C-alpha cells in the first residue's frame, strides 16, 4: 500500500513583487514502511510540502493523501495518524522534558506508559534530564525530545523536517541509526535534509530544487544515472588545477570534492593522457586521474546543470 501519494501539487506565495512558486507540480509516492528522503537545499520547497502533507497548509492545486486519507477532506483523521517534527524547535520551552512528552501523549488520548516501547531507545538517552525545562536542553537533546513527542501517539507516518540541520557529524550518524530502528517498527518515515551524504541512508530519495523534483529513485539508481564517466583528480596545487581544468574546452564540469576534484568530460572516451599532457604544458606536472564512483552530490549537481 502507498503511505503517501502526492499528485500534481502546486503552491505559490505572494512576495514583494509578484509571487514565488514554492512547489511546481510535484508528484511522487511513498511505500508503506519506507524510509523516504527529500533532499534539497534551503528554499527548495521541502517545508511547504511537509506542511501540506501534515494538513497545516492547503495546496493551490493538485491532491495528496496520507495513509489513504485526503489531506483536505480528511484532515482530522490524518492529524491523528501522523507524527510531525518541524524544522524549528516547537516544543514548550517552559515545560520539563517529561511534561512535554506527557502533554503530547494526552493530546492524542494516550499515555507515555502505553507507547513507551516505541520511544524507549531514544527517551533513555534524555531521561536523566526529565525534570529539566525543554528550553534549557542542548541542541542534540532537544532534537531527541522532539522525536519522542512526535512518536508518542504511535503514528503510522512520521514527517521529519530537517532533523539534522546544524548537527555535527557524530550526532547525525546516531540520529540516522535511530531512524533505521524506527523503520523496523513499520513506521513510514519521510525525512528532509540539505546534507547530500545522508541520501545514501534512505530507501529512496527525491531530489528537490527550487520547487521542482529533479529525480526520484534509490540512492544507487540516482548515482548510476550520472550517465558519464566520473574522474577524480589530485595535484599538489589544487587551486591552480581547478582553474586550469575549468578553462579547458574538453571539461564539462569540475568541482572540488574534499581532497579531490571531480571531473566530467564532454566526450565519454576522452583520453586522460591528452589532458595530462595539456596540464603539463601549463605547469601542472603531478596531476593524477582516477576513475571514481559518483556520489549523490555529483548527480545532484549534474541535474542542476541541465
Amino acid at each position, binding site marked *: 500500500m502507498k503511505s503517501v501519494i502526492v499528485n500534481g501539487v502546486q503552491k505559490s506565495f505572494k512576495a514583494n513583487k509578484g509571487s514565488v512558486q514554492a512547489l511546481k507540480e510535484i508528484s511522487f509516492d511513498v511505500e508503506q514502511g519506507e524510509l523516504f528522503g527529500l533532499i534539497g*537545499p534551503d528554499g527548495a520547497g521541502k517545508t511547504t510540502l511537509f506542511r501540506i502533507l501534515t494538513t497545516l497548509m492547503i495546496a493551490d492545486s493538485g491532491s495528496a493523501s496520507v495513509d489513504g486519507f485526503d489531506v483536505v477532506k480528511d484532515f482530522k483523521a490524518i492529524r491523528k495518524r501522523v507524527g510531525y517534527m518541524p524544522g524549528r524547535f516547537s516544543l514548550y520551552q517552559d515545560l520539563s522534558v517529561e511534561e512535554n512528552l506527557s502533554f503530547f501523549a494526552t493530546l492524542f488520548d494516550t499515555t507515555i506508559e502505553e507507547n513507551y516501547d516505541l520511544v524507549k531507545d531514544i527517551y533513555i538517552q534524555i531521561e536523566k534530564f526529565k525534570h529539566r525545562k525543554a528550553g534549557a536542553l542542548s541542541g542534540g537533546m532537544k532534537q531527541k525530545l522532539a522525536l519522542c513527542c512526535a512518536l508518542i501517539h504511535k503514528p503510522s507516518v512520521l514527517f521529519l523536517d530537517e532533523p539534522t540541520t546544524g548537527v555535527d557529524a557524530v550526532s547525525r550518524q546516531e540520529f540516522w541509526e535511530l531512524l533505521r530502528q524506527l523503520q523496523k517498527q513499520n513506521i513510514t518515515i519521510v525525512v528532509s535534509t540539505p546534507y547530500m551524504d545522508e541520501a545514501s541512508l534512505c530507501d529512496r530519495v527525491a531530489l528537490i530544487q527550487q520547487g521542482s523534483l529533479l529525480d526520484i529513485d534509490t540512492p544507487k539508481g540516482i548515482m548510476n544515472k550520472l550517465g558519464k564517466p566520473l574522474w577524480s583528480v589530485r595535484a599538489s596545487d589544487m587551486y591552480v588545477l581547478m582553474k586550469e581544468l575549468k578553462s579547458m574546452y574538453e571539461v564539462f564540469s569540475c568541482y*572540488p570534492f*574534499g581532497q579531490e576534484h571531480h571531473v566530467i568530460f564532454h566526450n565519454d572516451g576522452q583520453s586522460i593522457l591528452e589532458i595530462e599532457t595539456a596540464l603539463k604544458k601549463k605547469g601542472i606536472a603531478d596531476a593524477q586521474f582516477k576513475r571514481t564512483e559518483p556520489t549523490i552530490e555529483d548527480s545532484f549537481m549534474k541535474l542542476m546543470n541541465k
Partner: protein
Amino acid sequence: MNAIAVQNLTKQFGSFTAVDNISFDVKRGEIFGFLGANGAGKTTAMRMLCGLSFPTRGEATVAGFDLFREAEKIKKSIGYMSQKFSLYEDLTIKENIRFYGGIYGLTDGQIKSKTDFMLQHLGLSEQANTLVKSLPLGWRQKLSFSVAMVHEPQIVFLDEPTGGVDPVTRREFWTMIYEAAHAGTTVFVTTHYMDEAEYCDRVSIMVDGRIDALGTPTELKEQFSASDMAGVFLKLARRAKRGDD
C-alpha cells in the same frame, strides 16, 4: 607574523569549563578550519577571539592586538559572518553594503567604489535595489561574505557559512574563500561538512573544550589512520565525555 596566537586560553562559566586551556597559532593568509562536535566549545572560543567574550585566563593576540587590552581594535581588524545573522533582510543589497561600510568607518567615496566593485564581482548589479529577504539563500551567503570583507579586514571569521546551501553554491562559496586567502586575508572557518575540512590549509578539532588534534588534513589522516577527514572527526568526537548537555 601570526594572524592569531593563542596561549592557554580558558573560559569558565561558573564551574563549567567551556574552553579548556587551548593553544594554537594561525598564520597570515591561512585557511584555518575550526572543527568540533556540538557543545565542544567552538562558539565560545570564537566569541573570545572576536573580542565579544572576555577570557577567564590565558593569552591571545588577534591581528596583532591583545585580546585582553585591545578588544576594540580587534573588532575593527576582523570581519565576521554567521549563517544565522549577517544581513538586514528589510534593507536592499545596496543599503546593506552602505550600512556595514558606514559601521566600519569607510568614507562615502570608499563605500561607493566598494559597492560598485562588489555588485559587479557577485553579478548582482541588476539586483542592487532588491530587498535581501527576496534573495535566494546561496546569494545571500555570498553577499554576507563580501559584506564581512567590506573594510578589508586582516582576518575573517566564518561560522558555518555554507549550512543548507546547495552543492554548487557551496563550492562557489569556497572559491570565494580561496580567492580571499590568495589575496592575503586569513580565513578562520567552522563547518559541519567534512569534505570542506579537506579544503583548509590546517584544521583543529575541539573535544570537550580542548584542542585534541591540529594539523594539515594530510597529517591528521595519517595520525588517525583515516581515509578522509570524516573518519578523523568521528574517531575524535567519539572520545567526548561531556556530551552536548
